[in-house]
């Protein structure tokens, strides 16, 4: 295996061309912003809720210590040492491992496509937050103007606004429909904003992150104060944080914790490698890694508190409405005076009536109203943001301001993550010297953004949401774990643990201790292998189906489970495995190149010997 020579002082001339961060704060904010993304808001609280509340923190912390921080340190250190993007770094470590960088590049590209689509949706909601009343608070009327549109009446105003007025979703994935021009405009705007911020690389990104990385924390704090003062918030927090230790026996919980840490820190994309490569050579990457990982986890917890308070508020509101409906039925049926039964009296009155006239009470078909049932309703992903939260802000006084703040926060969270994704796409292109010399940096970045925008218009079709869920499930997960496994194995074994520790000692002034060496050599690779196998088994065992929104379905308000058609299943498989094929592909190409070169050398050697003079 050919090992790369480290960069020598003679290449310092090349290094001067490499952009640099203006100060350490920009670098830290960029990495924190890349790590902290939409998943911290809408995935971590959902996992906490479904996996035993506070008990989920145990596997989460274990995964952070044994998998998250070591892998993160490897990425930052190798980027800072070899001072290249992901493709350049792996080529420098070993020409046979050059494919790993290409996998990172492909995955970053695929993720950028659908991540910015989610940002386009967030932007659409943000633009609609500035009107009174909020457009998702009322149902539109049917053509006769005698009632509400049946689809809206049967579900709710918020769900109707999301599925019909925003997505205009079709009932089946093979039915593509037309491109939604409103969302297309929002997509163009969000790609324009991304291009504006990355137009000159970290020169512009470094200034943009001052706002986009700090604004979400400001909004989260404001929301925290508001949310804790809402009625029902404390019930929500208590219920959702009380630990259920029985959940720890379920291996699914540990798998979810490990994957959550992995995706939450945005490992394997190549963005962190690129960011670290712009650092000065003497920079304490160990402290940076630990700091950023901890900030990411603390942000997840902070966001979980806000989310649970608001979910508790929403559950209390729904519970109150349920009680009011039942009370009205009781008053009408039993001729009780108007408003004589309050919500607190309800249980006593119901018990009394049930004892005296049970048949009449049974005939009323009252809904069972328990606060725990409403609290247990969990949502994650776009459902949490666009349905649950959108409905929750409707009930807060000053709804427009809260809606605008919330969606503005989501937009800046997503924007900083997009910077990291695009860095993982653009930096390798510069490393590969893919562009002709006359093409300036701005033009190449513009071409990449334009290409991504055109490719992402496919998600703006009416069936776009189904495709986005497919990309979300299949495109990133397996390939990233594969990439990270090769990263840690490549650095620990191919680059050499001793050489790596020497590099780190030179960069930070301290040699990595036993914890780092053990995790890099043994624990993290084993963990990643286990996660890879478990994830593969999970994906294979889950029947490939999707939940469609079909108004003609019999049980309409709930989604209809439909199996994927054959060609969609084939696409899922391709998405999962095709990017990883770069690794064996490049290794084979390198082997072939070596063999042909060796064969050419053995052909030439007899001629030299015949020459005689050496």
């Amino acid at each position, binding site marked *: 295996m050919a090992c790369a020579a480290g960069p020598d002082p003679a290449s310092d001339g090349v290094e001067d061309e490499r952009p640099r961060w203006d100060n350490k704060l920009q670098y830290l904010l960029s990495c924190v912003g890349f790590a902290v993304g939409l998943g911290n808001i809408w995935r971590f609280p959902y996992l906490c809720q479904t996996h035993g509340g506070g008990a989920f923190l145990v596997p989460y912390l274990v995964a952070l210590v044994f998998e998250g921080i070591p892998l993160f340190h490897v990425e930052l250190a190798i980027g800072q040492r070899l001072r290249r993007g992901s493709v350049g770094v792996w080529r420098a470590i070993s020409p046979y491992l050059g494919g790993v960088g290409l996998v990172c590049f492909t995955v970053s590209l695929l993720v950028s496509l659908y991540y910015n689509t989610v940002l386009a949706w967030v932007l659409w909601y943000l*633009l609609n937050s*500035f009107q009174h009343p909020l457009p998702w608070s009322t149902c539109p*009327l049917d053509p006769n103007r005698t009632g509400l549109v049946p689809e809206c009446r049967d579900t709710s105003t918020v769900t109707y606004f999301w599925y019909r007025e925003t997505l205009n979703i079709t009932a089946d994935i093979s039915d593509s429909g037309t491109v939604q021009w409103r969302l297309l405009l929002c997509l163009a705007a969000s790609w*324009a904003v991304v291009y*504006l911020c990355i137009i000159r690389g970290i020169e512009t990104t470094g200034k943009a992150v001052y706002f986009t990385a700090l604004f979400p924390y400001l909004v989260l704090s404001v929301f925290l104060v508001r949310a804790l003062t809402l009625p029902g918030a404390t019930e929500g927090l208590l219920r959702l944080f009380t630990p259920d230790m029985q959940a720890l026996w379920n291996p699914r919980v540990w798998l979810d914790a490990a994957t959550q840490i992995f995706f939450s820190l945005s490992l394997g994309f190549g963005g962190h490698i690129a960011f670290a490569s712009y650092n000065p050579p003497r920079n304490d990457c160990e402290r940076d890694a630990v700091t950023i990982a901890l900030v990411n986890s603390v942000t997840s917890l902070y966001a979980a508190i806000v989310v649970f308070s608001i979910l508790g508020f929403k559950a209390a509101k729904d519970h109150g409405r349920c009680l009011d409906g039942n009370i009205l039925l009781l008053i009408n049926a039993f001729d009780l005076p108007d408003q004589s039964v309050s919500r607190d009296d309800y249980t006593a009155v119901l018990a009394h009536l049930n004892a005296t006239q049970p048949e009449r009470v049974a005939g009323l078909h009252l809904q069972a109203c328990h606060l725990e049932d409403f609290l247990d309703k969990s949502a994650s992903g776009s459902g949490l943001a666009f349905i649950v939260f959108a409905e929750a802000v409707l009930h807060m006084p000053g709804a427009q301001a809260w809606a605008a703040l919330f969606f503005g926060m989501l937009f800046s969270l997503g924007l900083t993550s997009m910077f990291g994704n695009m860095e993982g796409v653009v930096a390798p292109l510069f490393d590969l010297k893919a562009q002709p010399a006359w093409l*300036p940096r701005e033009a190449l970045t513009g071409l990449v953004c334009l290409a991504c925008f055109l490719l992402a218009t496919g998600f703006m079709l009416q069936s776009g949401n189904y495709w986005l869920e497919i990309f979300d499930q299949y495109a990133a997960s397996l390939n990233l774990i594969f990439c990270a496994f090769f990263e840690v194995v490549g650095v620990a074994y191919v680059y050499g643990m001793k050489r790596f520790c020497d590099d780190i000692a030179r960069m930070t002034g301290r040699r990595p201790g036993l914890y780092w060496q053990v995790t890099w050599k043994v624990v993290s690779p084993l963990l990643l292998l286990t996660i890879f196998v478990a994830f593969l088994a999970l994906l294979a065992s889950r029947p490939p189906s999707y939940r469609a929104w079909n108004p003609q379905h019999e049980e309409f308000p709930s989604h209809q489970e439909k199996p994927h058609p054959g060609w969609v299943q084939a696409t899922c498989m391709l998405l999962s495995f095709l990017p990883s094929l770069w690794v064996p592909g490049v290794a084979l190409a390198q082997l072939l190149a070596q063999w042909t070169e060796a064969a050419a050398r053995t052909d030439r050697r007899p001629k030299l010997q015949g020459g005689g003079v050496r």
Partner: protein
Amino acid sequence: IFQVLLCNVTQRVSFWFVVTDPSKNRTLPAAEVQSAIRMNRNRINNAFFLNDQTLEFLRIPSTLAPPTDPSVPIWIIIFGVIFSITVVATMLLILSGIQEHRRKNKGPSEMEDTEDKRENTVTIENGIPCDPLNMKGGHINDAFVTEDERLTPL
């Protein structure tokens, strides 16, 4: 004192009515009356201080008021603002980048001119050219700054 007699008591206050046209001595058909009531529902409700939920006309569904739509949807206005700001800022950045690029291209050529001039001039001090002094034999006083170091490189 009058006695109030009730008969045919129902749960709600209800009554039937017909509308007659005295000039033509006929009763108006139900369809005409229904459409007239539909158009003026609000005025009839207000006359009784009731609303659609409390005053019901059988077989006349109430028409709901549509939400007011401004002529230009508000989201387009805000989208226009954000998009134009982004485009203007991008243009400014691109233009400043092109200007810097042109300045850098001009810059090195200017530096080359000054270096040529430096080599051609012979520094003269007190009427005696300095270079020949260094060329002649004898000791060179290192305390004096040499020719090259006087001009600090850029």
